[in-house]
């Protein structure tokens, strides 16, 4: 599992965190204090990196959470079929099919960046 354990306090907007076993990108990080002698509580609102679903967690700032290690890789478009592109990784030469993000216009030979985490990939 490419992931590491961090404390909630180390999270920040724009960084990644696992919520419900799903890698998510953090949109908002805020804290509240539960009481004079308790540890502050943090609230993280995030969006699934690969499924786009909104998720949130609310935990003490010293609680441990998993942070996914998401690779950013280079690829080249081999072919385009409808909403899907066949992409070849420029390091390993593996090829695979990925959904083209809405509003993106890709053609064969275009070089792209994509995120990869445990067989899940997404063009950025």
């Amino acid at each position: 599992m490419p992931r590491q354990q961090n404390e909630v306090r180390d999270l920040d907007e724009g960084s990644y965190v696992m919520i419900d076993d799903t890698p998510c990108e953090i949109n908002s990080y805020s804290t509240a204090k539960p009481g004079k002698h308790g540890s502050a509580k943090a609230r993280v609102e995030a969006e699934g990196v690969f499924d786009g679903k909104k998720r949130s967690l609310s935990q003490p700032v010293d609680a441990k959470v998993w942070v996914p290690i998401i690779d950013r890789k280079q690829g080249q478009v081999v072919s385009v079929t409808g909403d899907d592109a066949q992409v070849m990784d420029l390091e390993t030469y593996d090829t695979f099919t990925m959904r083209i993000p809405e509003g993106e216009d890709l053609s064969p030979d275009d070089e792209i960046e994509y995120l990869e985490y445990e067989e899940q990939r997404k063009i950025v």
Partner: protein
Amino acid sequence: MFPGASADPASAEYVVVGAPLDASTTFQPGARFGPRRVRHFAESFDDYDQHTEQRFTDLAVADHGDVGPTDDVAEYLTFLRGTLADHADEGRVPLLVGGEHTVTVAGVRALDPDVFVCLDAHLDLRESYAGNPLSHATVAHHALDVADRAVILGARTGSEAEWERAGADDVTVVPPDEVADWDPDFDGDAYLSVDIDAADPGYAPGTGTMEPFGLDPATMHDAVRAVAPRAVGFDVVEVNDRDDGQAAVLAAKLLRAFVYAHAAGCIAGCGAHADG
């Protein structure tokens, strides 16, 4: 715990959330004690409501406890908004207890109502006050970033610029002597905010910024009950500890009146736990 709010949060229809923010109070501080006072002075109420023939303890009200503020008010409002939105997403109507009026901004952002209805002595339409854009005097201004309309009941004071802003089409101000005859004549759903200083200081002296010539409690009671069936959320704010409980007991009673009227007026299917 708010008396009678003994439901399990997971299956509740309503949830009391304390928000003891006391950061921008401009005159008499103590709003941080509001949630504690409101809970305490609700202890003497009967469970049964003769107007709607319901028992409070049958209405699935839970108490989330307080969400403690940090020094960073903007961040605190984000946290509070998220907490309230979570409850709303799970079918619970939030009942926010302030704290200073600024906490309402979190409630409105969480619930995204069509109309912001507010009982308040003040217009609260300032863009900032004393250099603070999150002052308690800016609440209606922020609410209008989310809601299409604001209806301010019982307002009787404001700056010249606020009265000018109040003249726009998206703001309706109902003066104190007209509130008794006011009907909720708006389209869509509402967020109802009760600043306890809408009441005349003779009835609710325990508040940060008293303003004479205000509403009597019965008029506030009727207004809350009229809006409640169309409301997606409720708050009562600006209660402090500088009286013998008058402000807190009125706030607590209005919160309960909201729940009774909302539950009675709720058509089937407006709660996620209709079978609960």
